[in-house]
Structure formats: structure tokens, C-alpha cells
């Protein structure tokens, strides 16, 4: 580093007088040039000498080879990420037995994240819904990561499923250019909440909590930039901010310059002895939807297409994680408790019953809603490799104010999907990991997401990882 700098300085100092020489070609300048050359030669010699003595002083790059007799003089094999990117592939196969037709699944009282209630596949957004009946292959996840240069690291994951290839995350990150600051840019899973940053193979259940499904349609990914700051304190204290495209639910594509979504989050975490560790967090996210449509049904049972315009949507959340392992040893027994709460306010305009021919709405007016949801789950590893878990989800459709309803133009029942409802789900699971790289899970859920109908969902899942050994978040 020093050398490069000096060499550049020397080159510059050489270049400048050389220019002068060209201007005024006299004996005097020629001798000056010769003098300069000698000075450079001296400088270079001194630098070389310095480098040699530094190398001798440091001397710690070359492993000492005493004490242990030569076993194999060859250098160790490079690790997964020594020169090439670390590559891993997650395979996820499932068998499901669903009492109710999954095509009729909806989260009653909530605007579906994908826009469409239950008429087409994936309508609830990526990562929402009970999935398909019978045998199916879930998304295979390909992850590639490596350091780009001394300043940046890069990470890429894509979900592959049938003909779909979905870039889930693709970001670059710098850690510490500004002390304590970790900066990320590209597409990334938002830092809000806790479970949102986890990929499916790190989930403790086969699916996401209902609240994440209802509020974000699965993992919330942002195209944008994220900056996190870790405070220099013995307790873990982190502040983060994001701004981004905000195109995914509850925002919408906007075709505009500038950011369409802002988030802020903070985490506080620490240990109580070696056995307990915890983390609490809070988050806030603000985004806009300029044209977000969804399908509903009116009181007569006719389908209507409603469109939100100029909608401001903000969500705040709280998250709490606690982990226990005797003396920190997770290999035999450990426990984990996690809970998250979210509350969303939406404020804007909604057009009711779009006429595709004319592009006009039957009704239009101010729309306001306030909805919330939470979950709590516990996972207990009671013997090596075996875990059991229990999760409870509860959502509240909350309050709804829509101008055409208030002034009597339509009735409350003309928004069938937005009727009052408290979706609820109870899930139990047991899983077995034959090694760190594979997990087999049996899960049962009693799902009351739909209005008035209970679904019994049984799922068997295997989820394995091939390739490099990735690190897991807390």
C-alpha cells in the first residue's frame, strides 16, 4: 500500500520535470533530470530494503514447521471460498395433505398481497399460502457468494421452480469502510423484523408466519440501499435504514425517480451468561402504492376489481428472540423463542368496481385502514438432532373506513374480502436433522385464515443443503 503510494508520488514528480524538459531543452535541465533519476533510484532501493526487513520482522506468513514432523508437505487444500465463490444449493421437497382446496385459500379480512384472491397460483405473493396438495418440489435455492475485492463482498440467491427463475437477493456489501457501518446495495431481504431476513432453509417451520404472509406476501425484498450502524458498545446495538424501489406489496410499481419506500430499524441484543442470549428490535416502514389492484366480491356475489390510488402504507413492528443452550452448547439441548408484532396503517384513495371497457369506477373515495397481527413460536431440541416446535398466529382485520360505505353508496358487504375477521393458525412440528446439512420435518397446522372454514394441513418436508457451508444468522 505504502509502496504503491510512494511509487505514484515518484512517478508524478518525474513526470512534471520531464514536461519542463520538453519545454526548455538545455544542459541544466538534463543534469537536473539525471539527479532526479538518481534520487528515484535511491528511494526505490530504500523501499526494497524496507520491504525486505518488514518481511523478515513479520515472518508470520510462512508457517513454522517444527515440533510436528512433516506429515504432508503439500499446502492445505483451499477452502470452499479461498479463490472461487462459495456455492450452495438448497433442495426442498414436500408432501402435503390439505383438507381444504388450496385454491380457495385466502387470509380473510386482508387485501391479498398478490392482488388476486384465490383464482391463480402464487396470487398471494411469493411465500404465501399453504402450497400444493400431494407431492411437490418447492423452490430450489441457489446461493453464490464471494469477496469481490478488499472492499466489497457479493451475494446472490435465486429461487428456481419449474420454469420460474426468481432472483431473491443480489447485493454487494461493504463492512467497516466507515467504522461500524455495514452498507449494502442491490436487492436484499429487508432488515425489518426477524424472520424476514431468513431464507426458507433457516425457518423453524415449513412456512412463514401468517403476519408476514398477510403484510408482505412472504419475504419482503427491497431493491435499493441499506445502511446499518453497529454502535461501539458491549451490548449489541444496531440502527439501520433502507430506501428502495418499494415495488412489492404493499407498495406498487411507480415508474418514478427517487425512492418509493423507506424503512428504519433498530436491534438491541446481548447475553445472560453463556446460556442465554436475546435480541429485541423495532422497525418502521413507509411505502406508497399508486396503482395496486385486487379482486373482491360484492354482496351479490359478483366479482369486482378495486384499485388503490395514492395510497400511503406504513407498518411498524416489534420483534423478540430468546435462545437458550446449557453453557452455550447447542448440540444436545437448546430452546428458542421468537415473537413478532406488526401494525399497518393505510391511507389513500380507492376506486371500486373498475369497468374494464371505460376505465371508470362505479365508486371512488377515501380509504383508511388499520390492521395488525402477531405470532409467537417456540422450538425445543430435546435430544441431539430432534426438535419440536409450536407456533401460534393471530391477525386482526382491524378498522376500515371507505368513503362510499360511509356515505351509503355501497354497503359494507360489498367488500366481501375485507369483512371483519381474525385469522388464526396453530402449528406444531417435529423435525430431525441427520446432519447439519439436512432436515426432515413433519408439520401439522390448524389454519383458520379463511372466513368460517378451518383447514387441517399436514406436511412432510425434506430440506437439504449441497455445497459450501454457509453461516447462519442469529
Amino acid at each position, binding site marked *: 500500500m505504502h509502496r504503491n503510494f510512494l511509487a505514484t508520488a515518484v512517478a508524478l514528480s518525474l513526470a512534471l520535470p520531464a514536461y519542463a524538459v520538453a519545454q526548455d531543452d538545455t544542459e541544466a535541465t538534463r543534469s537536473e533530470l539525471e539527479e532526479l533519476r538518481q534520487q528515484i533510484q535511491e528511494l526505490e532501493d530504500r523501499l526494497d530494503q524496507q520491504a525486505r526487513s518488514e518481511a523478515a*520482522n*513479520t*515472518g*508470520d506468513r510462512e*508457517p*513454522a*514447521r*517444527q*515440533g*510436528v*514432523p512433516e*506429515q504432508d508437505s*503439500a499446502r*492445505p*487444500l*483451499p*477452502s470452499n471460498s479461498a479463490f472461487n465463490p462459495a456455492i450452495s444449493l438448497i433442495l426442498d421437497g414436500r408432501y402435503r395433505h390439505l383438507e381444504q382446496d388450496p385454491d380457495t385459500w385466502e387470509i380473510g379480512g386482508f387485501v391479498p398481497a398478490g392482488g388476486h384472491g384465490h383464482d391463480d397460483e402464487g396470487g398471494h405473493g411469493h411465500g404465501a399460502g399453504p402450497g400444493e396438495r400431494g407431492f411437490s418440489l418447492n423452490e430450489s435455492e441457489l446461493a453464490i457468494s464471494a469477496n469481490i475485492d478488499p472492499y466489497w*463482498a457479493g451475494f446472490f440467491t435465486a429461487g428456481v421452480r419449474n420454469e420460474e427463475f426468481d432472483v431473491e437477493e443480489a447485493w454487494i*456489501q461493504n*463492512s*467497516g*469502510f466507515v*467504522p*461500524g457501518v*455495514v452498507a449494502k446495495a442491490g436487492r436484499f431481504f429487508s432488515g425489518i423484523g426477524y424472520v424476514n431476513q431468513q431464507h426458507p432453509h433457516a425457518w423453524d417451520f415449513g412456512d412463514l408466519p401468517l403476519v408476514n404472509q398477510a403484510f408482505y406476501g412472504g419475504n419482503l425484498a427491497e431493491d435499493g440501499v441499506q445502511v*446499518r*450502524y*453497529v*454502535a*461501539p*458498545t*458491549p*451490548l*449489541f*446495538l*444496531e440502527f439501520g435504514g433502507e430506501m428502495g424501489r418499494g415495488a412489492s406489496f404493499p407498495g406498487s410499481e411507480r415508474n418514478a425517480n427517487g425512492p418509493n419506500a423507506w424503512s428504519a430499524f433498530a*436491534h438491541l*441484543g*446481548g447475553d445472560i451468561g*453463556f446460556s442465554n*442470549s436475546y435480541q429485541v428490535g423495532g422497525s418502521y416502514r413507509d411505502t406508497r402504492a399508486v396503482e395496486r389492484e385486487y379482486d373482491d366480491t360484492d354482496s351479490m356475489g359478483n366479482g369486482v376489481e378495486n384499485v388503490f390510488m395514492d395510497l400511503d402504507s406504513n407498518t411498524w413492528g416489534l420483534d423478540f428472540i430468546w*435462545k437458550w*443452550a*446449557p*453453557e*452455550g*452448547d*447447542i*448440540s*444436545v439441548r437448546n430452546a428458542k423463542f421468537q415473537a413478532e408484532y406488526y401494525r399497518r396503517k393505510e391511507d389513500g384513495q380507492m376506486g371500486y368496481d373498475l369497468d374494464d371497457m371505460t376505465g371508470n369506477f362505479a365508486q371512488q373515495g377515501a380509504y383508511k385502514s388499520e390492521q395488525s397481527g402477531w405470532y409467537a413460536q417456540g422450538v425445543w431440541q430435546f435430544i*441431539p438432532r430432534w426438535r419440536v416446535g409450536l407456533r401460534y398466529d393471530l391477525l386482526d382485520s382491524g378498522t376500515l373506513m371507505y368513503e362510499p360505505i360511509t356515505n351509503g353508496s355501497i354497503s359494507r358487504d360489498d367488500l366481501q374480502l375485507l369483512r371483519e375477521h381474525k385469522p388464526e393458525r396453530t402449528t406444531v412440528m417435529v423435525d430431525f436433522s441427520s*446432519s*447439519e*446439512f439436512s432436515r426432515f420435518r413433519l408439520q401439522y397446522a390448524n389454519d383458520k385464515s379463511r372466513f368460517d372454514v378451518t383447514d387441517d394441513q399436514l406436511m412432510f418436508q425434506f430440506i437439504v443443503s*449441497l455445497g459450501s*457451508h454457509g*453461516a*447462519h*444468522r*442469529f
Partner: protein
Amino acid sequence: MKLFSVILCVLLLNLVPQVSHAEIRAFACEPEWVALLKELGGKHVSVYQATSPKQDPHYVEARPSLVARMRRADLVVCSGSDLEVGWLPLVISSAGNTSVQPGRLGYFMASEYVERLDIPDRVDRSMGDIHPQGNPHVHLDPRNLSIIANVLAKRLALIDSSNAEAYAQRNSAFQAKWSQSISRWERDASGLKGLRLVTYHRDSIYLAHWLGIELTMTIESKPGIPPSARHLASLLEVLKAEPADVITRMAYNEPKAPQWLSDRTGIPVAELPYTVGGTKQAKDLYGLFDDTIERLRKATGR
């Protein structure tokens, strides 16, 4: 209310950046490196211990507190060779601290400076969770520790040149005492040469290599794969045909499988500290080897 204010006070105290009088703030992944840093750094180095001696060093959570400590560390000292691959890279990349990034002065992977054993010819997960760079548990050969101490002392001097002399002095004092201790341990353990030892995991390979002990088999079926009933039954068959002298388990290994084998074969079990703090007697690096040899001798009567 009173409880609440106490909690609040503790929280606030923990949020105030700590004023430390030590010149180097070190982050040590495992207890053995805490001990070595204390030997070499004395009051000039403050050390944070990331894991407990009773925990399996292969499975560590990337706890928030580790990120907080990494944030302010000047030096991180770990075994390396992928032992910490499941958490350390994530902790380092989340901490926003350039001085401990791989390749920098503040990143010290101890096993890189000694000859590693058990380097696999072929790397395949069907062989369990093996380390392509070789066995990372290098600290159980005290000769490795003296090599590592030499390099680490130089590293401390490079990071904190104002105390370079102190580190060099402490290191030569350590080296002198350590080489005497090695001779003593080798004398004490001379009877263990040729011992046939059943180990839980091959973390004892460096110890065995040093003392001329033969590792006959492992209780776990493959690295990182706990023993199944069938595997234990097959071990029992082999042990009946070719008896071993001692079964060992490290302080972090579960006790049931070794005890089960011992009950059926009559081969004694020795519980070894593995690292500093693994047993009451293993108070420091000297105690670690004193106690390890003591326990092996006691169990085998040699």
C-alpha cells in the same frame, strides 16, 4: 418499579462505550486462545471470550453480543481451518470493523501456522463434516502452542508497537517455562506411549500424535454425526475383538455413549478437559496439559 430501574441502569451502563486501559482489545473464539493471549499480553491486552469451555466448538450461534464485541476488536484469534465457518464470517461481516477482516493484521487463525493433521485426500460430505484444510484442534499439541505463541507475540507487537518489547519479553518467559513443561509432560506421559485410545471425535489427534498414542476409532460414526445405536453395536463388536486401553470424551461431549461402551467392555472412560476451563483443574494452559495427562494416567493406571 425498582426492578425496572435496576434493569434500566444495567442497560444504560452496557450501552456506554467502555473505557479500557488495555492497548489491544482481542476477541478469542475459543478459551485456549483467551489463555494464550493472557500469557502473552498481560495487562496490555483485554480479551473477550466468545465461547464457553463446555460448548461444542463446532456449533456456535452467531449471537448479537459477538457482533458487538467484534465491532471494537483490534485482533480476533481463532483456531481457523473452518472450525468457525458456521458463524465467524457472518459475525465479522456484520460488525463493520475493517481491522479484523481476513488478510488484515487483526485476523489471526492459529492453525495456519502449524502443520495440520488429518488433511483429507478427498472432500465429500458423505464422509461427514470434515475440514478440507485439516483437523483444526491444533492446540492439544503443546509444541504447536509454542509455535503459535511466537507468531502471535509478533502480531501483538505489530498491532501495538508501543509495547513491542513487553510482548517479546512475555513471550520469551512463556517459551522458557513452556518448554520446561513440555519436557515434564513428556516424562510424565512416557508410559502412555502406544496406548490404544477410543476417542469421541478426532479432536484428540494432536494430543495422540504428540504422546505416541494410537487413536483406534471414533465413537461418533462420522465427523459431526452422533453415534447411532447400530454404530455403537458395531463398535462393541470391534472392541471385543481388539480391546482398547481407554475411552475418552472431551468436556463438551455427551457422556452417555462413552459410558455405554465402557459398561459393556470394561474399558475405563477418561473425561478430558479439551480446553482451558473444561475441568476444574484446567485453569490455564499449564493446567490443561497437567490435567489431561493426569486423567489419562489415572484411568489407565500407566
